[in-house]
């Protein structure tokens, strides 16, 4: 049984895990500059040192409700396809080893999550959803209004 390190976080009231190799850092976002007329899942852009990152309103994907990002909110920084993103999360817990093989194949995530969850695993007896970060930023096919 092989263990991989995962970052455990809270997102839209649920416990999720992100593979630690995809996580560059976890930051409190500074000023967020809104981006008008773009995909509703984008909360804005923010600066991290000399880089400009795109802030993804992660929970919009799940709940369909836009969440105003303000200074100090936690974001998980990750790089996908050469661009850097901050994924908004409610809370960050810990980095723990999880063996994905433990996953119970009978349990599937609810429909709203389905697209963004790779597996379901157990950690300390609790179920956690392992997020697929790629789908979070690939953009839903929501036309810019």
């Amino acid at each position: 049984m092989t263990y991989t390190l995962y970052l455990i976080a809270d997102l839209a009231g649920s416990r999720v895990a992100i593979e630690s190799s995809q996580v560059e850092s976890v930051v409190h976002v500074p000023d967020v500059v809104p981006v008008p007329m773009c995909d509703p899942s984008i909360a804005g852009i923010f600066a991290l040192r000399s880089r400009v990152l795109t802030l993804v309103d992660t929970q919009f994907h799940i709940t369909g409700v836009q969440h105003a990002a303000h200074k100090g909110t936690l974001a998980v920084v990750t790089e996908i396809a050469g661009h850097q993103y901050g994924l908004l999360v409610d809370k960050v817990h810990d980095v723990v080893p999880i063996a994905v093989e433990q996953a119970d194949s009978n349990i599937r995530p609810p429909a709203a999550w389905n697209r963004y969850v790779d597996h379901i695993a157990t950690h300390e007896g609790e179920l956690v959803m392992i997020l697929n970060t790629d789908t979070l930023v690939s953009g839903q096919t929501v036309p810019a209004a």
Partner: protein
Amino acid sequence: MDDLIEDFIAETRETLEALTSQLVEWERRPHDRALLDSVFRFVHTVKGSCGFLSLPRLLRLSHAAEDVLSAARDGHVEVSADLVTAVLAVIDRVAILTEALESGASVYDDDDVLTGALRQYLGDKPTGLATDPVGESGDVLAHEDSQLRGKTRTVRVSLALLDNLMSGVSDMVLARNEVSRQLRKVNSNADLALSFARLSSSVAELRDAVGMMRMQHIDKLFSALPRLVRDIAIELGKEIELRIDGSEVEVDREMIEALRDPLTHILRNAADHGIESADERRAAGKGPVGHICISARQSGNQIIIDIVDDGRGINVDKLGIRAVAANVTTIGEWQKMSLRSQLNTIFTPGLSTADSVTSISGRGVGMDVVRNNLQAIGGTIELENHEGHGLKITLRLPLTLSIIAGLSVRAGAQIFGIARSSVVEMVSTSNPNAIFEELGGRKIVRIRNKRYPYKSLEEILGIAHDAHTAGESRTLIVMRPAVGTTFVLEVAAVIDNEELVVKPGAPLLMGNGLFAGTSLPDNGRPMLLLDASGLGTAMGLSATDKDDREIDSRADAERKSNGPSALLFIATDGRKQAIRLSAIERMEDIDVAQIQYVGGRTRVSADGGLYDLWEYESAADDGLVKVLRLSDGDSTCYLAVSDVLDIFSIAGDIMPSAEPEQHEGVVYAFGAPVELRNMFSFFETYDRTRRNRSSDALCFIDCPEDSQWERTILAPLLTASGYAVSFDEHDQSRAAIILQRDVAKARERATDPRTLHLRDSNHSLTEPIASIYRYDGVGLISAIEEKLAARA
């Protein structure tokens, strides 16, 4: 072992790049020993390394090439064009195999054909001639070593590491700015400020140095071109000579990659369509060999690349027929187009003037792709057509891909960036020249009789107007995007004019087409850069060039019917005055430190030159002074002003002035009479000193080599009075005046009316012939003037 192979690959690739241009040169001069040697060295080195690394295919190839070249070096084999082609084929294969070695790809093995082609040159030679490689290698390697020692040493660094360093330095600059802000808040002491200034300047130096690391000689791009042209020329059976200038110009390494395809395409076009066959050229009275010249130069923050050929140029009529046939335009429209617009239809997708499709070009996909590629990196392309005599293509590119000159503008409470290259002009909404109209719900603004569609940035982006600034005047920006119609964008305010570092945005941000990227200004708050074409599209304007052309031709027509334009400004004495726009090069804010009263006149030192400054009233010790930079084509001077108001066109007659020296006349600007400044006086004095510096006012001074007085006293006096001075015996015949002190020579030249004799003494008694005292400056100058007048 892997490390060794990697080194071998890198080294071979580098040598190949350096060798490419030499190979072509060698073909032209096959008997050039030095070129033969360097080709030989290359294959020899490859052979040596391959044997060591056990790469049998490369070994066989390089061995065969080495044998032939070695025989050629010894004079056993005649170097013919076929031999060169055979060797080039082998070198190409070596390049392919080397690349394959790195990528792990496989290459079909028909090396025997290539080596066989080489062996046939050795056919009648005994095989023993394939020289003893050991003896040879010691020799050649020693030779190579001695050559390498003179070169600057370099190291290879991965691009990722370099980028890392770049972003590290950018972080440092931002941190420095932050510290500087903090320092300003607290009352810092002088020592601290001093050490911070030192830190600050070394950070700036470091940033420049890192910027330079990304720069590469454009030669890296150019070195492959001779080979390209050679191959095309052979395929087409034409003779083409390629000349390359400016290989030392440095550009961003990403730019080199971005330019490769467009430049290759332009060259192919020039060789295929531009240059005629030798017979056609002779019939047209040209030499049989076609010429293509590529030159690169840096001008300000632009790189300019010219590609000039002496071929047939673009047949505009034929282009018109093609354009009409392809439904790009109609005959009526075509006839109304300006020549420039007609030429520019060559950039329309699917249009080509080539009669036949060749393997090289003429498929109608070409110039449009070239232009798109250039626009993607912020460049432009211009054509200068001389039908029957050639075509000149000028590419203008920004110095680096990542830094653009930009404006920051405010919409609502948010700041956005705009590339300055797409901004034509800016006008305040309170300006009486801007008249707002409406057409079926679409807003239109008329600026100096030109109508543009307009919309506010807030409306386009769907953001709220800032409540605090309601009622304040806003700014209209006339935008001309690279593609699409000119339009006017209304913004709350223009904040600043700055260099913006462009960073690509995530695809999700760019999806709506409104943004060109992001930027992080010094304040650390990220900013979105607006895409001019995208804004136009969002306003519902067509994205084709068609309207642009119409506007162009309409603008052309207007320019003809309207009077000349003039600038309305407030002079330093507080009065409103006007000056012709054509004489103004630009408006500048110059530092007071640049202004000095020297040589009896107020002057500005700028761009390494010293220029006259007019009407400058002394100002504070520091700060900026608004000036207009005037030019008459040759000379430049500055005019200080209090403020610049607006541009208007001079309509109606110019009323004569009572002081023609000062004012050209009186004109009406916005309903009020203003004086139109007479530019003549600004340049008059400047020109007086310049005018005489032509050959007919040349003073030749006849004196011994070591004579101090003539060189240190007389020559400067004459130069200051506006005469050219020469000590060169060859100039004597064309000189207007001959000056001398030697009495013996004075007798020889007694009949030459150009001669002026100078005496050492104040009294004329001792001299046998008419003379002037050498320290009588006024007398001397008037004597020269008299002689010049007599000649005229």
